[in-house]
């Protein structure tokens, strides 16, 4: 078996004057689930579009399933499945017809199609809706059908571009379940997301992208440990209280926002830390307006690696 399923070396891409990818280096091993985590406009979709042969890079080396993008894009197309940001299924056809059509376009034999379509429909829990037009499907069902369509040819590598965006929490869990099943079959999965939780649930490895560069590449556990388990955010009534609190509060991963009179920090010991901080505030006579405890988010990862909020830009 080859060492890497996907190899990206010094990949660059600009749209007109705007440099979207500024030299991306990334490798994915066969059977690995890599999550590309980043805000809107970080270059996630651009990378997926390049890897799936939809977009030509300006420079850099890209090898997918052993095929060089420059000379063997047709071979790459035989080895990948893409589920893009939009649910690319035909509204007027039924779920069954959609999968059948995709199977035929992947040049599967009729017997293969006959065997795989019902199997996929069952796996994605779409048996009941199989013969209804897709326009009657819910968002979650469409997403599932979309995923199934990308898998009909059993490609060794699957690209998923924000597979759970615009889904309700229940459908999101269902999609996660199906992605986990893929993983157990040894398929290489390259997925993008804006949510740390998603990366955490699904990925073996998380690459964080910001401003067209990979700024971190590690296991979800290690990334989360770096970012801190939970964060406490305090908002003060007045700017004087805010200024005084800044002197008193000590902690790791401390960030403040002067405009909002707010301070946030990582808490290691949960309630004990909160109690301690509140006691100190009371002693100093500082009024805390609101207090929230929250799980680390993508923003915190960015704060950690860049010291500032995630850059938003054009995707």
């Amino acid at each position, binding site marked *: 078996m080859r060492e890497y399923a996907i190899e990206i070396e010094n990949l660059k891409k600009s749209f007109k004057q705007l440099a979207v990818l500024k030299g991306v280096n990334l490798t994915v091993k066969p059977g690995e689930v890599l999550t590309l985590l980043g805000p809107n406009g970080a270059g996630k979709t651009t990378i997926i579009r390049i890897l799936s042969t939809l977009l030509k890079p300006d420079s850099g080396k890209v090898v997918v399933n052993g095929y060089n993008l420059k000379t063997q894009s047709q071979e790459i197309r035989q080895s990948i499945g893409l589920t*893009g940001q939009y649910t690319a*299924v035909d509204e*007027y056809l039924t779920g069954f017809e959609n999968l059948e*059509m995709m199977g035929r376009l992947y040049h599967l034999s009729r017997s293969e199609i006959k065997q795989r379509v019902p199997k996929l429909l069952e796996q994605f829990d779409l048996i009941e809706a199989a013969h209804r*037009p897709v326009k009657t499907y819910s968002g979650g069902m469409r997403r599932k059908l979309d995923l199934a369509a*990308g898998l009909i040819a059993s490609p060794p590598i699957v690209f998923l571009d924000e597979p759970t965006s615009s889904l309700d929490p229940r459908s999101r869990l269902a999609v996660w379940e199906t992605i986990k099943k893929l993983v157990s079959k040894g398929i290489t999965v390259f997925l993008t997301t804006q949510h740390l939780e998603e990366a955490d649930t699904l990925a073996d490895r998380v690459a964080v992208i910001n401003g067209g560069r990979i700024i971190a590449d590690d296991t979800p556990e290690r990334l989360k440990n770096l970012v801190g388990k939970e964060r406490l955010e305090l908002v003060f009534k007045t700017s004087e209280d805010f200024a005084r609190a800044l002197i008193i509060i000590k902690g790791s991963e401390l960030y403040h926002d002067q405009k909002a009179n707010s301070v946030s920090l990582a808490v290691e010991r949960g309630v004990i830390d909160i109690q301690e901080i509140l006691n100190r505030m009371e002693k100093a006579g500082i009024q805390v307006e609101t207090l929230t405890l929250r799980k680390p988010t993508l923003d915190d990862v960015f704060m950690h690696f860049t010291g500032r909020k995630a850059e938003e830009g054009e995707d």
Partner: protein
Amino acid sequence: MKSQSLYQKACWLANDIQVLFIRSLKHIYKNYDQLLGLTIQPIMFMLLFRYVLGGAILVEEGTYINFLMAGILVQGVAFGSLTTSYSIAMDLQRGIIDRLKTLPIASWAVMMGHVAGDLVRNTLQAVIIIIMGLLVGFHPQANLTEWLIITLLVFLFTLAVSWMAAIMGLAAKTLESVSWIGFLVMFPLTFASAAFVPTKTMPAVLRTFAENQPVTHIVEAIRALTMGKSSDHHLWFALVWCVAIIIISIPVAAYLFRRHGGK
């Protein structure tokens, strides 16, 4: 991977076009909007010109309905082909084109599927228009050969406008812009022509345009054929126009298709 033989490639291409053609066919009867647009619009136009405006329009010879039929047929085909623009724009917006482009298929098979769908749609529509015309007084004088030539002309014209429509669909930025781009192109072509009225009363500039643009030649050719008359130079002009449009449109459409998203 070994490079596939030419024969294998040809088989796959035929398969891809067939699959995408079947998809377009299914859209004809599964999409009720398309079905209604296909039938109601030309029937409304026919009734409008036959009964509302037709009485006030003087034609040189024969009845107005006999004059009108060729115009309605060609207008139906022209506007009917905009379905291709709309379907392609929709496929682009929904990401279906993106997905199809990541498949191991020839890119223009996708457009061939839509254009072939247009052929079937327009044939259906033409049959409906002719039946409707017969009900409101149309008396064709064409013999079998002339009908065959009419069918061939309608097919060629469909291919020509469908490829143009594919270009419009690929060039449009949004679904909304498809309808006005289509309108902007098809409206002058069909109305500034001899489709509904003789060109004689038009102002000089408009008349020059109307008498030399493709739709007029096609309409005049079909009109003469339905009336059992010689279509003289119009038929040849019509054929040359259609073939020229097809030859130019296909590579343009293929270029735009490949370019899409690959900026």
